[in-house]
């Protein structure tokens, strides 16, 4: 209890710190120069209707690359840690799920997958993008696994998608250095007509790969957790 009181006091101290930090915060009334630039020049420079996407994929593309790398790392570590040592039995005795869930999942999963793909293809036009789409795809996978626990998910497929999309991402970035103004430069492809699917340069392409990659990585994490479900 003494310890908790101490922690409480420390937390109050921390609260004071945060209060000092935000004491002058009174909401923004205007955009700062940077944001204004993105808002005003973004559409011309990048051609993406969704400014967040413009920032995420192009202006701060390196962050995004880092971000998928983090997921990739997380997936790799999870896979490494939960990897079944050779020789361990893969004794699977799974309870069967209900017919309804099974059937529903058979219909729903492809729809979810398609939705996910839609979300990341339209990332430069509407809310959503690679991450959201990838997460949606992974959710579909979860549903599938819930419905059919015994289903062997193709690890190879996941890895293949993950690797190819990752390499493609990097290659697009490098292509930007070689053929355009810099790493991950958007103008590698023509900007197209503002507001259409085939616009905004390489953003849709990148987002596709991001979406696939994130989807694959999250799926990887989940399947790894799933597969060891039954081994004690």
């Amino acid at each position, binding site marked *: 209890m003494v310890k908790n009181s101490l922690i409480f006091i420390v937390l109050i101290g921390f609260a004071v710190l945060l209060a000092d930090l935000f004491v002058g915060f009174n909401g923004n009334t205007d955009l700062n120069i940077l944001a204004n630039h993105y808002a005003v020049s973004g559409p011309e420079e990048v051609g993406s209707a*969704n400014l*967040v*996407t413009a920032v995420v994929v192009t202006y701060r593309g390196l962050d995004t690359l880092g971000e998928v790398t983090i997921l990739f790392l997380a997936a790799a570590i999870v896979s490494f840690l939960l990897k079944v040592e050779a020789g361990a039995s893969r004794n699977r005795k799974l309870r069967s799920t209900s017919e309804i869930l099974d059937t529903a999942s058979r219909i729903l999963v492809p729809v979810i997958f398609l939705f996910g793909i839609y*979300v990341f293809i339209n990332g430069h036009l509407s*809310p*959503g*993008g690679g*991450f*959201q789409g990838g*997460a*949606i795809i*992974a*959710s579909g996978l*979860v549903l599938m696994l819930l419905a059919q626990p015994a289903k062997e998910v193709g690890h190879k497929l996941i890895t293949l998608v993950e690797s190819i999309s990752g390499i493609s991402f990097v290659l697009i970035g490098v292509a930007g250095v070689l053929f355009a103004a810099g790493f991950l430069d958007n103008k590698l492809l023509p900007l197209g007509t503002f507001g259409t699917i085939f616009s905004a340069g390489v953003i849709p392409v990148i987002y596709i790969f991001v979406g696939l990659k994130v989807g694959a990585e*999250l799926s990887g*994490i*989940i399947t790894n*957790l*799933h597969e*060891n*479900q*039954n081994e*004690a």
Partner: protein
Amino acid sequence: MINLIIAIVIGVLILIMAIIAVHHKNIVVGIIAAGVVSLFASILYLLLAAPDVAMTEAAIGSGLSTIIFFYVLNKIKRQNG
């Protein structure tokens, strides 16, 4: 103004849920409460004109994250039993 009230209500709910998440003895309840915090947070994001973030938070924070929690918890329970 309506936005303000919704924000306050949701804010309070978030905090209550957070306290439940931290302090409830049942871990399952805790995990769900944490998921609900994320869900409410995504509503806040919508209010704050951040649909992208809201989507992500909903899909990842309250969705996948909670699922992973449950997977792990489930595994732990099985090993126990």
